[in-house]
């Protein structure tokens, strides 16, 4: 596990700057870290805008590595607005890219991965402003088989009591009560919460992957119901989600979540499931 500090500042023209200080002393209190940021920016003309503590841990995936690539990314992001070039480039390297953000983002304008395997999102927030995201987030970037890193970025002031419906979904998914989840949050264990949640999601997506097949005779991509899986996803999809096919020739098309068969026109085809948190799972053919 490693902890770093992400400091956002603005200049006189209200341009936004991100300063990352890696390998923060984990025993330091949040107040000390905030003072550290203040001390640093006493030497700068920029004004401090936000300070976020980022915790990264490595998790060994005990399950066999899936054969395909897939991805999650932020909910409420318009799929059409995502920078498909960057996204597909990441997938094209054979990497699995996962990212979760429980809210606040309307569209992703750019995705970059830095040397520490953090994913930075330059994004448009729901209020229409454009900035580098500094709200709660969780990102995973997989580069080595069977191993991936989870990054949780949260504001220094994490809410002590979960009030958003998203916490109910997370608690249900990882099989704990809402009060237990609240206790974990109070104990600053969001990294464990997200790790468990993502593990549960990954199992779902691996099951969902079985539904996707390529039909050479008709050059089609086909999605079939799988016993024990269809209902779960059907419930989720009927709740808020959607089921999409992304083809680099025809763009995005929303399709029937229970059955789909369509022509493959492009070189890259991605099947996307959206769960009730609004999180997407892309299954690349």
């Amino acid at each position: 596990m490693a902890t770093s500090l992400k400091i956002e500042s603005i200049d006189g023209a209200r341009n936004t700057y991100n300063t990352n200080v890696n390998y923060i002393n984990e025993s330091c209190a949040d107040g000390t870290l905030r003072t550290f940021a203040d001390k640093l920016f006493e030497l700068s003309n920029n004004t401090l805008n936000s300070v976020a503590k980022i915790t990264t841990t490595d998790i060994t995936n005990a399950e066999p590595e899936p054969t395909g690539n897939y991805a999650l990314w932020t909910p409420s992001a318009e799929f059409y607005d995502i920078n498909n070039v960057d996204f597909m480039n990441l997938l094209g390297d054979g990497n699995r890219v996962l990212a979760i953000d429980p809210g606040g983002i309307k569209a992703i304008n750019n995705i970059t991965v830095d040397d520490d395997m953090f994913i930075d999102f330059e994004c448009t927030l729901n209020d229409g402003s454009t900035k580098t995201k500094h709200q709660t987030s969780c990102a995973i970037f997989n580069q080595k088989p069977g191993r991936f890193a989870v990054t949780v970025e949260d504001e220094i002031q994490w809410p002590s009591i979960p009030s958003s419906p998203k916490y109910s979904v997370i608690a249900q998914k990882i099989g704990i009560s809402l009060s237990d989840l609240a206790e974990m949050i109070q104990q600053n264990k969001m990294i464990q919460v997200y790790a468990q949640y993502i593990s549960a999601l990954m199992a779902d997506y691996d099951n969902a992957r079985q539904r996707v097949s390529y039909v050479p005779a008709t050059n089609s991509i086909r999605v079939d119901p799988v016993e024990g899986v269809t209902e779960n996803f059907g419930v989720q999809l009927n709740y808020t989600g959607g089921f999409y096919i992304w083809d680099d020739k025809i763009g995005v098309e929303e399709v029937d979540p229970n059955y789909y068969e369509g022509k493959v026109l492009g070189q890259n085809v991605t099947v996307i499931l959206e769960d009730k948190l609004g999180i997407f799972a892309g299954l690349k053919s």
Partner: protein
Amino acid sequence: MFDIQKFADTVTSSTNLKIEWGFEDGDTRTFNLPNPIDEISSSDVAALNTWVATNQPIVGDKSGSSSTGINSAIKVEQTKTKLDISGE
């Protein structure tokens, strides 16, 4: 697809304070503070150094060793010119 020529000869400049930290295991780490104040002095950097030595907010990335302080602080002014690569 954006137009390469649109960005040709665009000049941007930036100033950073490049601070190198030392650690007890001999490791060093550098990070850039954007837009440093114009009249920055060695005593300003020394004050930061003292505070960091007392509170130890950063650790070395190899063995988690303590910071020995700031090795250097250099103000770097950088000018970038995007060149026309359209070949026309």
